[in-house]
């Protein structure tokens, strides 16, 4: 059927009306979000803060990891957290109880954070605490392995958690999310001896199939925490970030 007039004569064409023009745009479809993200990133860079976007399925252990991270870092780095959840202030309150500065964004029914939400949050959540600048800001994204990957927030690094209670083929199932990762963290590794269906090797080879050499580290943040490799990685990234960065490096982490 002809889409213009609805008739069923095959092959006929309607000439373009004289006042119709096709404008070539060739611009990113997300330019409004990307514009806000670039603005956030400039603000982060001016404030000298390293921003890490934490993403995973719900329940992979993001909040627990942040609690253990703060405990392991002690006074070495000043951290703060922006929490994203559909509802409740629970995670931010939980972090505050552990002495971590936290700001909660509730997204309602939205399945991801976007750059505008982070921008608004920054108006209410200064990147310094009583004159002491924040070294690392974590954005704990909404638990979801699909949507958050499509929205740049202005972060410098993406960390994706894959817990051992999930399938070890998650990277193959959610390639967009895992390709975006600068680091993949296998969390809840203290449970590995109890699980007969999660193989660290299979998880690694699933990730390798995505064409990136993404580093993988294993953590446990339970009763006997083991976050040493993660803290080492984080402190190394923080140290790199402190020296002036070339534009190329920044661009590389943005598109990652």
């Amino acid at each position: 059927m002809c889409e213009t007039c609805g008739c069923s004569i095959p092959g006929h064409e309607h000439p373009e009306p004289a006042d119709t023009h096709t404008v070539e745009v060739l611009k990113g479809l997300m330019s409004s979000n990307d514009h806000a993200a670039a603005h956030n990133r400039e603000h982060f860079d001016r404030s000298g803060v390293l921003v890490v976007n934490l993403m995973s399925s719900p329940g992979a252990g993001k909040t627990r990891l942040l609690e253990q991270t703060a405990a392991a870092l002690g006074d070495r780095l000043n951290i703060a957290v922006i929490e994203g959840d559909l509802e409740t202030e629970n995670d931010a309150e939980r972090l505050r109880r552990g002495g971590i500065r936290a700001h909660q964004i509730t997204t309602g029914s939205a399945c991801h954070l976007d750059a505008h939400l982070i921008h608004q949050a920054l108006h209410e959540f200064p990147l310094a605490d009583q004159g002491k600048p924040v070294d690392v800001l974590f954005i704990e994204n909404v638990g979801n392995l699909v949507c958050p990957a499509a929205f740049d927030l202005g972060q410098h690094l993406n960390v994706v958690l894959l817990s051992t209670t999930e399938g070890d083929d998650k990277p193959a199932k959610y390639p967009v999310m895992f390709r975006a990762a600068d680091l993949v963290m296998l969390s809840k590794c203290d449970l590995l001896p109890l699980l007969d269906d999660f193989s660290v090797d299979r998880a690694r080879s699933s990730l390798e199939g995505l064409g990136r050499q993404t580093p993988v580290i294993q953590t446990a943040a339970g009763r006997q925490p083991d976050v040493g490799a993660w803290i080492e990685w984080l402190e190394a990234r923080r140290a790199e970030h402190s020296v002036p960065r070339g534009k190329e490096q920044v661009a590389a982490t943005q598109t990652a």
Partner: protein
Amino acid sequence: MHEMAVCNELLDQVRANAMQHGARSVGAITVRIGALSGVEPDLLERAFTIARAGDYTDNASLVIEPVAVRVRCRTCGNENDAAANRLLCEACGGYAVDLVGGDELLLASIELHGIPDSEPPARHQNAKGQISEGEDSYV
């Protein structure tokens, strides 16, 4: 499902363009969506039929040009299409590859109706086509 949010971003940009050119309405909107962009074409189409209601875009249509995933091998230089979750070189089997296509999320062109001036609009939009937000200082 974040396609509704993506669709609203798209329509904001389209409407800003239509307004800038003094158009009466918008016809076909052509977008290029890569298989690794994180956007599902079917869901975007469904979101579009809901989100298009409003100024300029009431009767607009969405044309989606899908873009396949394509990789270039860093070891042997071979280029081939690949599945979204298996980005391997077909020639040598290596997984050290660069993505050369497939993550596009691009507004390619917009058909504008009722432009008052007979002069056709410029083919390429400059940065002024963006929705400007004003510099904000977080005070």
